[in-house]
C-alpha cells in the first residue's frame, strides 16, 4: 500500500543554483483523484520554483476550499502555508502580505472558490494590485462537492450526469484584464511546456499576476460533451505565442525577429521571449488582449499563453507606501519614534 512516496530519488537529478533538487520542492503525496489536472499544476509549480532557484522558506502558499485549494499541501513542503475558508484566500493573502511584503505569495484557488463564493474578494485583490501569483485551477465544476456546474462552466457543456449547463460562463481571465490586473495568462494543466514559464514569469512579476489554468476534473467533468475535458481542451486550444523565460542572470544570446517575436523585460531584468505571435495582438496592450480573447471565444477557441502584461503599474505596497521590512522586525524605536515625530505629524494635519 502506498500512501507515502518512497524517499529515494533519481541519483542523477540535477541541482539548481541553491543546491536543491526538484524533489526539495515537492510536498506530500497527493490525495486527489488519480489523473486530476490539479496535480499537474502542482508539478508545474514545483518545476518553476526549482528552476527559479526560489528559497522554499521565502514562499507562502495560500488557498481557499476545494480540491484545487488542497493542492498547496502537495507542493513546496518546506514553505509557509495557510489554507483559509471558502473564497477568502485573497483577504488572507492581503493580510499576510501586509505583515511581510518580502515573501513571495502563491495563491491557489478554484473556479468555485473564485468565481462564485469568492468573487467579491477576487475583484478587490485585483483592484488593489496585490503583489502575488493567483492561480485558478479551473475545471468548470465544484470537484470537491462532487462535480456540480460552476460559474465558469460553458453554456451547453454537458455534465457527467448528462445535464446541459444553461448559464453563461464567467471568463475569469477577461475579467482580470478588464479589472486592470497587471499580468494575465491562461494555460492548460496538460501543457507544462507553456505553464512552467508562465508561472516563472508570474512569480517574477511585481504586482498581481493571474493565471487561469484549465484543469480537467477526471472524475466529474472529463466526459464527452464537457468543454473542460482533456480531449476537448486539447482540440480547442490556441496559443497567443510560445513563451520562453530567460532569467536575469543568464546571458542573452538569441536574436529575435520583431515581426513574429517580441521580448518583454521584467522588473528584475529577466526576459520573456515570445515567438509565433498571434495576429493583431500586443501583450502590452489591454485592448488588444481583450479583443484577442473575444475573438478566440467567438471561434470556440481557448486562447492560452501570456495575454497581458504591464510592468509599470504601482502595486499595493508602492501605492500605500507600506514599510519595506516585515512587521515582526520593527522594534520599539520604529514603532515609537518619539514626540518630535508626533508633533510633525500633528502639524501636517492642521
Amino acid at each position, binding site marked *: 500500500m*502506498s500512501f507515502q512516496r*518512497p524517499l*529515494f530519488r*533519481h541519483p542523477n*537529478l540535477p541541482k539548481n543554483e541553491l543546491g536543491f533538487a526538484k524533489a526539495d520542492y515537492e510536498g506530500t503525496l497527493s490525495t486527489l483523484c*488519480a*489523473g486530476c489536472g490539479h*496535480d499537474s499544476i502542482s508539478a508545474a509549480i514545483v518545476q518553476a520554483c526549482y528552476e527559479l532557484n526560489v528559497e522554499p522558506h521565502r514562499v507562502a502558499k495560500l488557498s481557499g476550499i476545494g480540491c484545487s485549494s488542497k493542492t498547496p499541501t502537495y507542493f513546496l513542503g518546506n514553505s509557509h502555508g495557510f489554507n483559509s475558508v471558502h473564497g477568502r484566500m485573497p483577504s488572507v493573502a492581503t493580510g499576510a502580505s501586509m505583515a511581510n511584503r518580502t515573501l513571495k505569495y502563491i495563491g491557489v484557488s478554484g473556479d468555485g472558490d473564485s468565481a462564485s463564493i469568492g468573487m467579491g474578494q477576487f475583484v478587490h485583490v485585483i483592484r488593489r494590485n496585490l503583489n502575488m501569483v493567483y492561480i485558478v485551477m479551473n475545471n468548470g465544476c465544484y470537484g470537491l462537492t462532487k462535480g456540480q456546474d460552476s460559474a465558469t462552466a460553458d453554456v451547453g457543456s454537458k455534465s457527467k450526469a448528462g445535464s446541459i449547463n444553461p448559464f453563461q460562463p464567467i471568463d475569469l481571465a477577461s475579467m482580470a484584464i478588464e479589472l486592470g490586473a497587471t499580468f494575465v495568462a491562461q494555460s492548460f494543466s*496538460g501543457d507544462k511546456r507553456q505553464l512552467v514559464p508562465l508561472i516563472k514569469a508570474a512569480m517574477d512579476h511585481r504586482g498581481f499576476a493571474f493565471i487561469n489554468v484549465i484543469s480537467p476534473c*477526471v472524475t466529474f467533468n472529463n466526459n464527452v460533451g464537457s468543454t473542460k475535458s482533456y480531449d476537448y481542451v486539447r482540440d480547442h486550444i490556441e496559443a497567443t505565442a510560445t513563451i520562453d523565460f530567460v532569467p536575469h542572470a543568464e546571458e542573452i544570446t538569441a536574436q529575435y525577429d520583431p515581426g513574429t517575436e517580441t521580448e518583454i523585460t521584467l522588473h528584475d531584468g529577466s526576459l520573456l521571449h515570445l515567438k509565433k505571435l498571434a495576429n493583431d495582438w500586443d501583450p502590452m496592450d489591454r485592448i488588444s488582449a481583450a479583443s484577442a480573447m473575444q475573438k478566440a471565444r467567438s471561434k470556440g477557441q481557448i486562447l492560452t499563453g501570456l495575454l497581458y502584461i504591464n510592468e509599470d503599474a504601482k502595486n499595493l505596497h508602492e501605492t500605500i507606501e507600506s514599510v519595506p521590512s516585515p512587521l515582526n522586525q520593527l522594534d520599539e524605536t520604529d514603532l515609537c519614534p518619539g514626540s518630535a515625530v508626533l508633533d510633525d505629524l500633528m502639524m501636517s494635519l492642521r
Partner: protein
Amino acid sequence: METTNVNDPEYYHKVVDCQYACPAHTPVPEYIRLIAAGRYADAYMINWESNVFPGVLGRTCDRPCEPACRRGRVEEEPVAICRLKRVAADHKGDVIDRIPQGPFTPNGKKVALIGGGPASLTVARDLAPLGYEIHVYDEQISGGGMMRSQIPSFRLPESVLNEEVNFILDMGIHTHFKHYVDSLSALLPDYDAVFVGTGAPKGRDLKLPGREEGDANIHIGIEWLASVAFEHTHSIGKKVIVLGGGNTAMDCCRTSRRLGGEEVKVVVRSPFEDMKASPWEKEDAMHEDIPILNNHVPKSFEVKDGKLIGMTFDRVEAQYDENGKRSLISTGEPPVFVEADDVLIAIGQVNTFPWIERDLGLEFDQWGMPVVSKQTYQSTLPKVFFGGDAAFGPENVITAVAHGHGAAISIDLFCQEKEVANRPAPRTNLFHQKMGIHEWSYDSAVASDQRFVVPQADKSVTLKDRKLEVELGFDERTAFQEAQRCLNCDVQTVFTETKCIECDACMDVCPTSCITFTENADEESLRTQLSAPALNTDQDLLVSDTLKTGRVMIKDEDVCLHCGLCAERCPTSAWDMQKFLYNTPKAGISVT
C-alpha cells in the same frame, strides 16, 4: 526510437536485474517475498528448482546478482540476496517430501557423469526423474566436487553440503566414488551419453629459484585445501605466506590461521583493488588478522640448511596505459624478505584432460581446452557433453549449475534423437496484481533501511576450530527487514498506450523521475532529454507507441522502484503492475 517489443520475454526478464544476472536465472524477488512471508520451505523450493544447492549457495555463491541488484543503484548497497537464500535454507524444516523420489520409470537410457561436482549433480537431478539411469564417477570419497574438497567447512558446514548432495544421490543415482576415470573411450560404449564435469583440478605452480629445495614446505593451494578437507593435513607452520589474490588464497590463509598459523600473510603482485577475491572475502581475511601485502612480485624461495626460511619479493607499482592495460613496474627499492615456515601457492587453476584420448574425434583447441558449444554444451563428439569448470575454465558453483541445466536439456534431446540446437523456450507469465485502490498483492511501499549486516561468531572461537561456521546467518526478524529492501523488480510496470489520456499524473508522481512524455527522437538524444538523464545505457528505455498528441511515453527502467505509484495515479489503468514470472527451460519440457 522504435516501440519496445515487450512480447520478447527477455525485455521484462532484463528488468529483473538479479534474476537476469544469475547464471541459473533464479526468480529472486519471488523467493524473497516468500521469505518475508515466513514461507521458508516454499522459498527454498523455488531456489532448489533453479540452483539446486540453496544451502551451499546461500553461504558461498559468488553472487553475480548483487552487483546487478537495482537497489545498489538507488542507494548504497544491494539487497543481501545471497544471505536471504541461506535464511530459506536454514529455516525450511523438512522438505524431503517435496523432493522428487524414485524409483522413476526407466526410459532405457544410460548416462555417465564424470566428476561429482555441482555441474554433474545438476545433470543428475534434472535427468534422473525423467527415467535416465545415471552413473556418477568421482575419484573422491563422496560427491560434491570442489564444494567438498575446496570450500572450507568454516564457510560451508559439511552437514549442509551432505543434505543437498544426498537429495540428488538418493534419487537412485549409481555412484562410483574413489574411481578415477582414466579412459573416456573405455566408457563410451556403455552409455548413451557422457557428461564431463571434472572441473579444473590442477593448481598452478610457481617455478622460482629455491622451489625444489624448499619443496617440503611449499604446497599447491588447492591440493593443500583438499588434504585438509579430507583430514590428511592437520597443521601448518607458525609463519605462512600465501601467494595469490583470489578466493583460493583467501581460503588458504584463513584455513592456515585455524591450523596453527600465527603470522599468516597474503602476498599479491597486484594492487589491493585489482585483487580477484570478492571484497567480502578480503574483509573476512583481514578481520582474522591476516595482512595483505600488495604490489609484491615473488622473486625467490629462500632456503637455509635445506629448509625453507621465507621468500624475497620485488616491490612494484601498477601503471596503466591508455587502454587500461596494466603493467607492474619495479619501484627500484631493494627486494623485501618475508619470513615463512610454509608457503601456499594459490595463483590459479588449470584444466587437464590426460584421460581423454585424442583420437576419438573430440577436438581440443590450442590451449588444450575441449571445443564445446556455449549454447548446447556439446563437444565435437556428439554423445559427449561438457559443463562446469571443465567446459570453459574455472568459474564458480552457480555457473556449473547453469551449465548442468543446459547440458541436461541437450542430453535429453540427444537421447530422444531430437535436434540439440532446437532448445525449449523459457516459460513466462504476466499477471496483474491490483487488489484495491491502494492495494497490490505485493508490498509496494519501499523500505528505506540500509543493508543489514550478517552477524559472525567471535574469532576467538572460530579460529580454534576449522569446522565452526563463521557466519551465523540472519535471524528471522532481520531477514524480514532485509527482505523488505527488495524492490520487487519482477512486478513490471506495464503500459497500454490506447488507454493513456496523457494527463501526466504518472510522470508527476514518479519518485525517481522514470517517466517522460516527449516527442520521439533517436536514443542518444532522448537519453539526455528525459525527466532525469538516463546515463546508464545498460538499462533499457521502454518506448510506447505514438500517443494521441503525437508524443511517446518513455520510461527509463534504470532506477524504477516498482512502487506502483504510476499505476495508482493513472486514472485509466494505462499503467498496471503485473508480476512477471520467468522460468528457464528445463530438461523434459517439450520443444514447441
